[in-house]
């Protein structure tokens, strides 16, 4: 089903993109507890808050399919590349987000950071005399079979390989496909809608003109294995 949101989380749940990747696990726990209580399961902790029963589904019926009840309720859209961040949360304007991102990235390795915090006690040491990076350039990435389009900042990469590897890593976290088995095919689209071939232009020029990326994969899916 196209709209299925896979709520399994990336390994980076505890790291934060300058602190804003809130731990979805924590909040799911709370909601899960509330849901359990709602379904009438025993809850002996007296001062634990017990919500009034409520209906998440629209017609008062329990979900027909045996879906995770949280899925039908959750329509949280995901954005940003590294963590499961929620769109527009926390609610700060893009100019400030852009600045905080710049400060965060100027002291961390572009993709494999683990959310190192600003070192408050010694700011002089952490403030690198880095030339202010050019404003980020976010490019939409659509993976075959994944409902949510992701966005990556193309300025964080320096080669086709680093880009494609990172994208594969990002999507592998959410799909059942074995990375080794899968044959990924990348298509790059420029600003005018023209198609760019991987490796055709030098990286710098490519990075300036790429506008959209789409990925198709040839994945020996567990179900198709059964058919043959």
């Amino acid at each position, binding site marked *: 089903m196209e*709209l299925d949101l896979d709520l399994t989380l990336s390994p980076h749940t*505890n790291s*934060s*993109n*300058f*602190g*804003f990747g*809130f*731990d979805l696990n*924590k*909040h799911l726990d*709370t*909601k899960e507890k*509330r849901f359990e209580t709602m379904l009438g399961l025993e809850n002996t902790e007296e*001062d*634990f*808050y017990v*919500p*009034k029963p*409520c*209906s*998440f589904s*629209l*017609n*008062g019926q329990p979900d027909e399919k045996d879906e995770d009840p949280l899925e039908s*309720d959750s*329509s*949280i*859209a995901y*954005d940003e590349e590294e963590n499961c961040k*929620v*769109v*527009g*949360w*926390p*609610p*700060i*304007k*893009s*100019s*400030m987000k852009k*600045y*905080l991102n710049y*400060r*965060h990235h100027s002291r961390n390795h572009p993709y494999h950071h683990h*959310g190192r*915090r*600003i070192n*408050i*006690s010694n*700011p*002089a040491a952490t*403030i690198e005399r880095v030339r*202010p990076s*050019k*404003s980020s350039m976010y490019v939409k990435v659509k993976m075959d079979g994944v409902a949510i389009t992701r966005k990556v900042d193309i300025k964080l990469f320096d080669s086709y390989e680093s880009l494609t590897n990172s994208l594969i890593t990002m999507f592998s976290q959410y799909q059942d496909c074995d990375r080794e088995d899968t044959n990924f095919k990348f298509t790059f689209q420029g600003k005018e809608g023209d198609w760019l071939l991987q490796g055709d232009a030098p990286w710098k020029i490519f990075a300036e003109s790429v506008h959209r990326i789409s990925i198709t994969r040839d994945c020996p899916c567990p179900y198709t294995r059964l058919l043959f």
Partner: protein
Amino acid sequence: MDLRLPSKVLEHILSFVDSNEDRNSVSLVCKSWFETERRTRKRVIVRNCYAVTPAAVARRFPEMKSLTLKGKPHFADYNLVPDGWGGYVWPWIEAMAAKCPSLEELRLKRMVVTDECLEKIAASFKDFKVLVLTSCEGFSTDGLAAIAVACRNLRELELRECIVEDIGGDWLSYFPETLTSLVSLDFSCLDSEVKLSDLERLLSRSPNLKSLKLNRAVSLDALGSLLRLAPQLVELGTGSFSDKLDQEAVAKLSQAFSELKELKSLSGLWDVLPEYIPLLYSVCPGLTSLNLSYATVQMSDLVELITRCSNLQKLWVMDLIEDKGLEVVASSCKELRELRVFPSGAGLDETNVAMTEQGLVYVSEACPNLESVLYFCVQFTNTAMVTIARNRPNLKCFRLCVMEPFAPDHKTQKPLDEGFKAIVERCKDLQRLSVSGLLTDKAFEYIGTHGKKLRMLSIAFAGDSDLMLHHLLSGCESLNKLEIRDCPFGDTALLENAAKLKTMRSLWMSSCCVSFGACKLLSQKMPKLNVEVIDEHPLETRPDSSPVERIYIYRTLAGPRLDMPEFVWTIHKNPEIGVSHLAIK
């Protein structure tokens, strides 16, 4: 005996009536008063550009000198409104160019402004004086050049947090040598460098310049020479505050700052280095407004600055200030009216969180004029909110953003219902409220019961059921704007309180449980509302029970808008659609 007031007399009387709210009342008295009022209104404000057509506004107020327009809903600031939704200013400029060529001032918020728009403004309004664009997008620095070159009497050009296609800094050089009327210039949101010599020349011939906000590309070195050319500044936004300067340059800059005898407002300070903070000491005592939202320095440096700002009324700062720093704010800034504390990202994972609810409690205790708060914090407690409410019943705006969604009171693990109850109960003049953290039905019942003066309410990740939306819509008498995201509110409350929506400017709901069928039904019931379903998946084949991604409902006299993109649906796109029977309890 003719008891009517001669229109000349009425006109004269109305010239003293400034507030638009009063003028709106005047226009309801009778036809002649309506006529006199509309012919004399100079300042027109349209808070939802789709509530009325440009032609209607132009026709009604032919003597308009100043027009203020707002476009996208507030949540567009947080990327919740897809690109291409709307908010185009072009039709307005076209209409005004035709009917109100003596327009002098244009103030736009969250609108799409293209270079063509800017060129048309430059070409159509001979006496154009003021252009203030807040959170706008769609134009490039070429458009700015068009304004600069053509508007001979330009007084204000302000770009506040706009997204501009930055082609280069040349636009500044287009201000003609004959332009000497500049009072305010704000290009802080632009990225590229302007030529220092162009800027210096502009400042030299602008004796009336009171407000100057530079962009980050203007170096600290350049700042010195600019300040020497404009010692009369009342508002200053610096550029980057981090170059390495030699002793002499530092001394000169310090001198330049001390010459700013009129300075009341300071902002910018990007990348400020701790060693340069003392440069600002001389202006501190005079400051009423200080924006440190980009000053990522540690608490002790921030405190050095703030202790010297005894007249501060407005402070925007990052959470690097910590509780201790806010304690200093409390003791030093007795005139404080507005406090905003933004997240730096540093505090979320630490077990030893240096900025907590206590910081805000300190300020609420000691600052008697505090009436507006925006506070980002990882967690909060009910006790703190109760204390704050008790200390400051004069709060008008309380926006608390507990950054961890569903976070309960971190001491008692209970929901934050009681805290918000205290806020709405005690702060009887509260007009704006943003809630967060773990909230149940109760919280909204309290808000509905006590929030009688509440005009704007923002809710995220809260509540348990539809009943809560019902409490808000039926209880909050003054409610004007309601924006909700990720709450399990659904059809029932919305449909039962449909009439309420006519008394409000707008309602936004995203990632909630409102069904497509309810949207259709609401559209049919309420023809004076535009019920927009904003959903990136096609709707025609959707069953009525499926939830929609976002809805934006607003009252309007203009009918359906003509510029809807594909992903915005209103019933006018498919008027023949029927509504299948919904079981609404």
